[in-house]
């Protein structure tokens, strides 16, 4: 029996109100984690940016609001324009806050497998530390940009890394643009 779809088409604002209760419905085989790396000058070394210094607003759990934006736009046509905007915004914020002139930025994602010792026998709460990554973790680069005078120039626009790992269903949203019941 397929549930979660109304038999009529609703305006988007009303549909958002209806789709309230169906949370945490699926088993999670992976949990995703996002972070940003930058480089300065001609230095080719990438170093991680603590996004809690740049865009600290939390969304839920230990996930930041910016991470939700990356997760929700993953695989969408507008993802490319959003990530470019995000890269330019981060470059501006780093310059305003710390006087950093960055020349490169990349957005990376890690997929942590559940039922591995790091996740089902953890030391404490969810942590962002990536000093030692378990072998089961899959890392991919979502996008890479060169930053020139505050403008992000695409070096790599599409995800690169281990393919075929789906976003956990808990964070997937159904595309409500088609009326329910239509093929």
């Amino acid at each position, binding site marked *: 029996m397929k549930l979660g779809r109304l038999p009529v088409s609703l305006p988007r604002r009303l549909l958002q109100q209806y789709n*309230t209760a169906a949370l945490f419905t699926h088993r999670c085989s992976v949990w995703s984690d996002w972070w940003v790396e930058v480089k300065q000058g001609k230095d080719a070394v990438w170093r991680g940016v603590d996004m809690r210094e740049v865009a600290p607003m939390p969304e839920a759990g230990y996930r930041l609001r910016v991470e939700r*934006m990356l997760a929700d736009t993953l695989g*969408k046509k507008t993802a490319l324009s959003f990530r470019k905007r995000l890269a330019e915004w981060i470059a501006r914020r780093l310059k305003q806050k710390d006087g950093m002139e960055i020349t490169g930025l990349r957005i990376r994602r890690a997929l942590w497998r559940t039922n591995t010792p790091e996740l089902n026998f953890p030391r404490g*709460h969810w942590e962002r530390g990536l000093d030692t990554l378990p072998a089961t973790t899959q890392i991919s680069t979502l996008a890479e940009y060169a930053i020139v005078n505050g403008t992000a120039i695409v070096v790599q626009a599409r995800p690169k890394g281990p393919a075929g790992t789906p976003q956990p269903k808990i964070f997937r949203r159904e595309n409500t643009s088609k009326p329910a019941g239509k093929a």
Partner: protein
Amino acid sequence: MNETPRPEASAASVFRRTVSSLVAGIDALPLRVFEVCFTASYLLRVGWLGLWWREWLTEEGIHLNAAELAEIGYAPPLPLLTAPGVVLLAVMICLSAAGLILNKARRLALLGIFVCALYTQGVDWMSASSLSKLHVAVYGILLMSPGYLRDPVNGRLLICAVPVRVIQATLICQYLASGTAKAFKGDWLKHSDVLYTLVQGVFRTDFAAWCLRTLPVWSWTVMQWVTLLFELEAPVLFCVKNLRPIAFVIGIGFHLMIALMMKDLIFFSAQMWTFYALFITAEEYRRLGAWVVAGWRRISGFMIRHS
């Protein structure tokens, strides 16, 4: 000679009593308690989000535009604010909440808080969640409902039962929809470790980590089944008066575990708990109040005698 009551008469009587319980005027004390607690939970949530007001409500933060939101199924965002606009919003929220809590200019307060709830949801969909939807829905129901009346005999507040029943039904429908989605759309009937895997992720608190290290794996399957059965049987547990204590024990415990194991979901749990206030009758509130007052008098008398 005693006549046996006709079946049609008792069926009609049951129907009349059912309709009466749904629409008649009732003691408004449970609704008042709910209004105060629900508004307090709204203030907590908005206050928490307001710690990051620059990123949340102004151009300083990064926001998805209308095209990006449309592609992921959201309506266009409402306009962002300047710093003075944020102050105005905060004042409007505080004044509306105060009016509602103190039952002063109630209709105006409801309109104000409904508009604020609608705005804080629509201005930034990425920080909105089920919490926001329930704020909008509940304040909308209360705004459209008749106001309070005074009982001419005892001066108590009365309210039409309809909004109370609708909000009670909202809680029950939430649980039932959630359980149904888990069972029929989700994996909860197919896998025994769904809850186990959910607790391992980005919501994991230190307490959840301790539970993962300490509790046996089968206990997570038990918790998974208790959760699913509670949600699917919520209509029976909440509607049958003798079963309601079971609903309270399991429901409050269920949301307490969510709050302890999943970071920031205390706001969701607090909001859900406020709905339970509607399932306590006015007489039970008054008995509880009398018990608390009597206990306080005994304690203060004891302290005065021994000071």
